[in-house]
């Protein structure tokens, strides 16, 4: 009876995951979708605790203890993390899931070796357990490394022949796994721990050489790995809700990774293996290849230009996040609106270092959602715009993406700011952005550079406009 009810609960849980994920993919329903999925998870967990056959009464204390500790820690850290640190946080939570899958495999392996003769272990079970172990470990360690990189604790380290080493290592892991399962040698237990260790090592080596800025893509990939690891648990316990949750996330996560890569006009292989091509223009220069010159502008002139414009479009980029200038940016917008200037934000899908980075950032400073216009919709408007204010963006406004087939970002859709009447670019120097390439926009006659840290400059700008 219990078993039947539990099956039903799992069914409801599975459906709630599907519906939740579906609703999460539409802006209007996203929040509700998250709650629905959370509801499904809650009943699945409670159902398992109270109805699963074979849970010993004496262990309830441990279970609830773990749940309570996890809930407290999880809620606290999730509540107090800064919005700009979200990717780190997601990565960390993902790693926890991977670790959980890994430990489950470890425990189930000891059960297996207890109940069967070494050499006569059921192959199917062993395969599932080992896959769970390998994928879970990679996801766990990889997420930690990604977290370390995003939060700046770890730099990019590339060994010579890194790729060869990685592929070799992966083949080694798979080789030992196949051998162990097929042959079932007496040293199976040793091999198991060897596989575990090698997987952990692989997790580190896999993520280590990837550029810190590519971390969101990697996190999304590791996310889908953890999904697959969870699905292994589903096979192991013949548990449908784990299977549905795991595989849904596995496939959705994989596609999301590809979508993210596409928005940056890079292939996944490119992200995982290579860094960007030449990286030539990383130094500073004040004359462009085509001979244009940089025109500087000061805060006072900018203030006048903005105040007497009819409409202004602000293009936020990674520099806005670095400078944490979102609040003063919103202040500038409000002052301009009060002066009768129409202000909008142009949101490029991959501005910043994670998808939706700019939305999250600006929403945090209470910018109205209606003012955030996505690329396709704002692009036609630039030609009728008086002033475009580029705040710490670079690649997403680089015309080379349209004009220079040899450029590494060629083909990436960009914001057509060069159609506007005036373009003001705020950044600290002439240095390149993420893609490491020079930007012709800065040398065009309509463009003026306003050098300095975004937050400082914007603050000055606000007081200047107030004073006018």
């Amino acid at each position: 009876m219990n078993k039947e009810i539990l099956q039903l609960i799992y069914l409801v849980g599975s459906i709630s995951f599907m519906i939740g994920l579906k609703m999460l993919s539409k802006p209007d329903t996203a929040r509700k979708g998250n709650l629905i999925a959370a509801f499904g998870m809650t009943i699945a967990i409670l159902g398992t605790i109270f109805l699963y056959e074979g849970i010993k009464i004496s262990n309830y204390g441990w279970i609830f203890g773990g749940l309570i500790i996890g809930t407290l820690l999880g809620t606290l850290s999730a509540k107090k993390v800064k919005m700009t640190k979200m990717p780190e946080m997601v990565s960390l939570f993902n790693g926890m899931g991977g670790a959980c899958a890994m430990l489950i495999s470890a425990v189930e392996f000891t059960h297996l070796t207890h109940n069967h003769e070494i050499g006569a272990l059921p192959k199917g079970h062993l395969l599932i357990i080992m896959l769970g172990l390998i994928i879970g470990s990679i996801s766990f360690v990889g997420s930690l490394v990604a977290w370390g990189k995003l939060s700046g604790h770890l730099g990019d380290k590339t060994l010579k022949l890194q790729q060869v080493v990685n592929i070799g290592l992966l083949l080694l892991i798979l080789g030992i796994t196949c051998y162990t399962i097929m042959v079932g040698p007496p040293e199976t237990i040793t091999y198991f721990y060897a596989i575990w260790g090698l997987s952990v090592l692989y997790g580190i080596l896999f993520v280590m050489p990837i550029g810190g800025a590519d971390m969101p893509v990697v996190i999304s990939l590791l996310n889908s790995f953890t999904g697959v690891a969870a699905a292994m648990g589903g096979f192991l316990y013949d548990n449908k809700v784990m299977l549905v949750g795991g595989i849904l996330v596995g496939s959705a996560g994989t596609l999301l990774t590809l979508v993210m890569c596409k928005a940056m006009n890079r292939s996944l292989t490119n992200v995982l293996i290579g860094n960007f091509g030449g990286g030539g223009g990383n130094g500073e220069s004040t004359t462009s290849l085509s001979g244009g010159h940089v025109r500087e502008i000061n805060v006072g002139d900018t203030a006048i230009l903005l105040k007497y414009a009819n409409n202004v479009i602000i293009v936020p980029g990674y520099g806005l996040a670095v400078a944490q200038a979102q609040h003063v940016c919103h202040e500038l917008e409000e002052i301009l609106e009060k002066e009768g200037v129409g202000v909008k934000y142009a949101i490029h899908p991959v501005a910043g270092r994670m998808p939706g980075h700019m939305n999250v950032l600006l929403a945090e400073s209470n910018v109205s959602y209606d003012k955030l216009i996505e690329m396709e919709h704002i692009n036609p408007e630039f030609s009728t715009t008086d002033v475009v204010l580029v705040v710490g963006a670079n690649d997403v406004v680089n015309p080379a993406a349209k004009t220079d087939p040899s450029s590494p970002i060629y083909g990436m859709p960009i914001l057509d700011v060069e159609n506007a009447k005036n373009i003001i670019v705020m950044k600290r120097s002439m240095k390149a952005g993420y893609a490491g390439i020079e930007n012709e926009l800065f040398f065009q006659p309509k463009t003026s550079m306003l050098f300095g840290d975004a937050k400082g400059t914007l603050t000055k700008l606000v007081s200047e406009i107030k004073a006018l």
Partner: protein
Amino acid sequence: MLEFINSNIQIIYLVILMIFVGVELIEKVPSVLHTPLMSGANAIHGVVIIGAIIIMGQAESTFAIILGFISVILGTLNVVGGFVVTDRMLEMFKKKK
């Protein structure tokens, strides 16, 4: 191979259909929602906690109890943290005046 496929045919259909559902659900998503979606999916794979509860619930040796306990904590972190973070992100998207 053929035999394996046949004895697991139901599961194979299930897995293929799920992959389809997962892919279809994502295809339409606007880029603004990529991060919350990733985070929500992250919370969902926390369903692995159920495996942790099962091993914890059946644990007898100290080794199993310790590992089980840790994995329950880790799984809960994944689930709870995941959903709360997602909710916080999405809260920001609600229309404001």
